[in-house]
């Protein structure tokens, strides 16, 4: 399928085109061209082979081959060609392989590239005029807000229709993942823009001792000097040599300074790097020099979007950089010396200049005519000139984004016909150089930039402290007069990316959207991929004219980050998520553990048969690696006071050698964490937290100590990974542990339930042994110096072989604790669960004078309307309602939800925990549980403890 019927005919007429064929629009070699004629590059455009040279952009290679149309416009599917011949070119977005939205006037051709046009819907064979007629009815001004809104049930259909209007390419589902990375940098000075001013500023800053990042969007330094005349090229060689002579300058080409955040936090995206697609550099710079030059502004008139209408800088780029003749017969509308230079360049390229329309003398162009491209140009004096090229040079826009993001608010200067920065509002660490700062000849601009570079180095503290020495005297730049030329008043497009016409703006004003921010959103002008750099000032000018206000009164829209669209890949970078393993992880992996990602930790979920692991614990002995349990070592005379504040229960009377279970709430009464804390000595405690809550609790403890009770004497040391932790559970756990301990009396009388001892296990001293019971069985949790974790684990397995000891994983532990009705914070509670809904009523001591969250719990208790945590057993014990299944009240409303559910190997039936409204939370009540497939099952409310309600098994 071809989108280019006319140019295809033209090509076959000259015999040019396919691979290796001559390029009819390629000029003889020119000084300053950036292509390597000695080599050729073959690529495909919509399936047809083409040839370019290294250094060509996709657009320059296609233009050399005679192509004029590179895309179809967004709404009306009008043919679009070269406008700027730069990164910004709105008519040159293409798909390259599986990469969408490639800027074809910027991306260099490469061998084998598969380039396709985007937005070719419905197809070019379809009569374009008919398509226009069809869509114009639907795509009125503000169509986003008017069309396709009602009736609502048709939205899925509308979405499909609207999708075909999205002027984006496609990412095939099977496209290969890209490689993106990130880097941090701390340069003294970042220079945004590698034209003459940026180069001069970088050299001056580096000479003053600064480290400099010089960032240029194009593939070479030089800015407009690259496509200038011999004098400009000579100057470019000098500046390039000066840059190269400074080792303190890091040059980044094909790179963009994307934004400026507080304190010069500057993201830079760099491309064309070996081995990766893109790199996001996060730079913290001392000073930022903004030197992006000026963007040439299009002129708005009827037919201004036709292929063949281009900016003077576009024509000069095609001719001088790529040796491409942009047309055969040209009309030039010029209002400035750059336009005049374009006339000379066109003539040197053999283009017949049929008319030069000098806007400085009041002459103008009113319309371009043609269907697939310019055929004739209508002048203000009524003349009609046959031409296939219309070059405009009507003025400049200062791309002030980075300055706006620095707090500056540019001011419209009618003399210069552009917005200019307000130096009074720039922060000290941001400076401007080059055309954005003012006008002048090259010597003046370079001298100004040189001073700016030296001052930037001084302010960055490159030599001595920041701001040392006296300020550099920066010469002021003049501002040249320029006629105000925005629109001929004959219609045309304001925004070629979004297909917004001048009429759309005036319609928006007529409908009441008369502020620039409203009109922008209503029409979507300036909201396309060029982000307003070409469109904003024309939009403002037309809006100003329609409202009778001045441009200065109308103001501009806000220029937000990013400066250029950024890929998600660059933002994501490479995944650098650290993971944590216990010292026993190698053993787990060797023994078939199925890994479970639990926060930062990788843990064994089970070793193949979780039900058998449960049974082993209930009947013999099992061991589980619980290293991720959070552990805080607390020492000092005021630890008991701290515990009393943190937990809902009482701690003042906890004796040495005792442990106690506690629940912590946040100040809103919501359960924050739970765990046991043991008293190892007079002023020495060990606190355990949930695995996922370890970091939160540590910060929580530090917060209350440092900010609320600075006089309390408590020293907090996180020891989570200083210990490897193993829980030994089951009726034979005492027998097993006794074989490995010599200095701790494990007898029930000497070491009772909820006690702590320190001693030697498997020859390793300084272990902490807790006798606690999450699983409901006789069990010991031992904390071993981490480097001996694997040793102790192995010794437990060896010593217990005849007892049938086996390892168990997190899944078996979950089942065991569910059989015992123990809640898990974050599973059986959520971010709204206050403590009286967590099944710990007997723990909450409202008679304590204070603890965190106490007032909320007092009120929760008084209201009494809160959900309760209850046990649940489906009447049909073979059905396990999935977690998060909803529980219905008698009217069919939601009365609660299943928070945990499993098949219990011990009971041979389904069991669960549920949050349930109080009126249903009565043991013996039957409730309806709705399963995810919509069917209902009946379940009975039970006590939370399903196995051994008296706790006899763990107190032996």
């Amino acid at each position, binding site marked *: 399928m071809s989108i280019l019927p006319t140019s295809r005919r033209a090509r076959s007429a000259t015999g040019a085109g396919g691979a290796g064929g001559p390029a009819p629009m390629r000029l003889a070699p020119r000084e300053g061209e950036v292509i390597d004629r000695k080599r050729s590059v073959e690529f495909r455009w919509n399936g047809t082979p083409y040839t370019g040279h290294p250094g060509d952009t996709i657009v320059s290679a296609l233009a050399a081959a005679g192509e004029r149309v590179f895309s179809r416009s967004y709404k009306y599917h009008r043919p679009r060609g070269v406008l700027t011949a730069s990164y910004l070119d709105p008519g040159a977005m293409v798909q390259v392989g599986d990469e969408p939205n490639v800027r074809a006037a910027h991306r260099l051709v490469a061998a084998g590239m598969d380039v396709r046009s985007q937005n070719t819907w419905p197809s070019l064979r379809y009569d374009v005029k008919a398509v226009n007629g069809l869509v114009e009815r639907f795509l009125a001004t503000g169509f986003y807000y008017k069309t396709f809104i009602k009736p609502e049930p048709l939205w899925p259909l509308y979405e499909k229709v609207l999708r075909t209007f999205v002027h984006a390419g496609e990412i095939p589902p099977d496209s290969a993942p890209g490689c993106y990375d990130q880097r941090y940098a701390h340069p003294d000075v970042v220079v945004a823009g590698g034209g003459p001013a940026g180069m001069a500023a970088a050299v001056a800053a580096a000479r003053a001792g600064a480290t400099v990042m010089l960032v240029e969007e194009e593939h070479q330094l030089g800015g407009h000097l690259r496509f200038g005349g011999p004098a400009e090229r000579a100057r470019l060689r000098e500046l390039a040599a000066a840059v190269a002579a400074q080792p303190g300058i890091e040059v980044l080409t094909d790179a963009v300074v994307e934004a400026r955040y507080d*304190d010069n936090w500057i993201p830079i995206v760099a491309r064309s790097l070996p081995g990766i697609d893109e790199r996001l550099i996060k730079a913290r710079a001392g000073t930022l020099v903004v030197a992006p030059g000026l963007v040439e502004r299009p002129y708005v008139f009827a037919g201004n979007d036709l292929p063949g209408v281009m900016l003077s800088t576009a024509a000069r780029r095609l001719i001088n950089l790529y040796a491409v003749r942009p047309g055969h017969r040209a009309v030039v509308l010029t209002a400035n010396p750059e336009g005049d230079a374009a006339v000379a360049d066109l003539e040197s390229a053999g283009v017949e200049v049929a008319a030069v329309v000098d806007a400085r003398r009041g002459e103008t162009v009113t319309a371009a005519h043609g269907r697939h491209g310019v055929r004739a140009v209508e002048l203000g004096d009524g003349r009609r000139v046959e031409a296939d090229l219309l070059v405009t040079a009507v003025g400049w826009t200062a791309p002030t984004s980075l300055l706006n993001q620095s707090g500056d608010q540019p001011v419209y200067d009618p003399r210069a016909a552009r917005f200019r920065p307000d130096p009074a509002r720039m922060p000290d660490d941001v400076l401007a150089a080059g055309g954005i700062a003012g006008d002048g000849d090259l010597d003046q601009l370079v001298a100004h930039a040189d001073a700016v570079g030296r001052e930037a180095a001084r302010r960055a503290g490159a030599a001595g402290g920041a701001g040392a020495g006296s300020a550099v005297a920066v010469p002021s730049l003049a501002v040249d007069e320029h006629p105000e030329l925005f629109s001929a008043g004959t219609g045309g497009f304001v925004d070629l990316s979004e297909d917004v016409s001048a009429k759309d703006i005036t319609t928006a004003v007529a409908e009441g959207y008369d502020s620039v921010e409203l009109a922008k959103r209503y029409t979507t002008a300036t909201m396309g991929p060029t982000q307003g750099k070409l469109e904003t000032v024309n939009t403002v000018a037309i809006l100003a004219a329609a409202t009778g206000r001045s441009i200065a009164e109308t103001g501009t829209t806000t220029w937000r980050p990013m400066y250029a669209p950024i890929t998600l890949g660059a933002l994501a970078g490479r995944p650098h998520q650290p993971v944590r393993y216990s010292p026993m992880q190698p053993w787990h992996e060797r023994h078939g553990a199925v890994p479970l990602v639990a926060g930062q930790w990788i843990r064994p979920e089970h070793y193949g048969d979780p039900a058998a692991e449960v049974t082993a614990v209930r009947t013999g002995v099992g061991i589980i690696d619980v290293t991720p349990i959070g552990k805080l070592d607390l020492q000092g005379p005021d630890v008991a006071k701290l515990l009393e504040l943190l937990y809902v229960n009482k701690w003042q009377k906890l004796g040495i050698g005792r442990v106690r279970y506690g629940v912590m709430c946040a100040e*809103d009464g919501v359960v924050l964490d739970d765990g046991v804390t043991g008293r190892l000595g007079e002023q020495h405690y060990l606190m355990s937290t949930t695995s996922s809550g370890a970091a939160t609790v540590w910060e929580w403890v530090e*917060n209350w100590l*440092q900010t609320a009770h*600075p*006089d309390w004497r408590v020293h907090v040391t996180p020891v989570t990974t200083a210990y490897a932790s193993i829980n030994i559970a089951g009726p034979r756990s005492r027998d097993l542990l006794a074989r490995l301990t010599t200095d701790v009396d494990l007898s029930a009388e000497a070491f009772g339930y909820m006690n702590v001892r320190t001693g030697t296990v498997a020859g390793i001293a300084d272990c902490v042994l807790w006798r606690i019971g999450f699983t409901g069985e006789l069990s010991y949790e031992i904390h071993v110096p981490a480097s001996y974790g694997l040793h102790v684990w192995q010794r437990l397995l060896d010593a217990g072989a005849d007892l049938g000891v086996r390892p168990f994983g997190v899944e078996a532990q979950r089942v065991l604790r569910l059989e015992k009705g123990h809640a898990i914070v974050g599973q059986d509670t959520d971010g709204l669960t206050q403590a009286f809904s967590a099944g710990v009523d007997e723990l909450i001591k409202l008679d304590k004078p204070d603890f965190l969250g106490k*007032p909320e719990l007092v009120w929760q208790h008084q209201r009494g309307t809160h959900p309760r945590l209850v046990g649940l057993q489906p009447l049909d014990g073979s059905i396990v309602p999935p977690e998060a299944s909803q529980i219905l009240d008698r009217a069919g409303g939601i009365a609660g939800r299943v928070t945990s559910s499993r098949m219990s190997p011990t009971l041979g039936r389904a069991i669960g925990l549920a949050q349930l409204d109080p009126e249903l939370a009565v043991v013996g009540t039957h409730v309806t549980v709705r399963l995810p497939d919509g069917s209902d099952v009946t379940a009975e409310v039970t006590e939370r403890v399903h196995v051994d309600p008296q706790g006899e098994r763990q107190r032996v």
Partner: protein
Amino acid sequence: MMLLPCPWCGPRHAGEFRFHGAAGTRPDPATTTPEQWRRYLYVHDNPRGWQTESWYHSAGCRRFLTVERNTLTHEVRSARDTQLDAAPNAAEDAR
């Protein structure tokens, strides 16, 4: 992202810290009303200008800092160790 001048670590990226909000006063739990308590929990001033805030240098010295910051300009007038400010001796012990 702005830089915060940590008194222990020097100027550091704000991403290293956790913002704990404007420094507030906890009502007396013995006498507080629901209105006072919820105000303490949820209703905070959002001034345009200077504010005294609490920041925790979680990826640094792990100290809580009392920071005077201008919410409009992000200028930081002072950043002090909260505990050291209030109880110099206890803080010395703790470190």
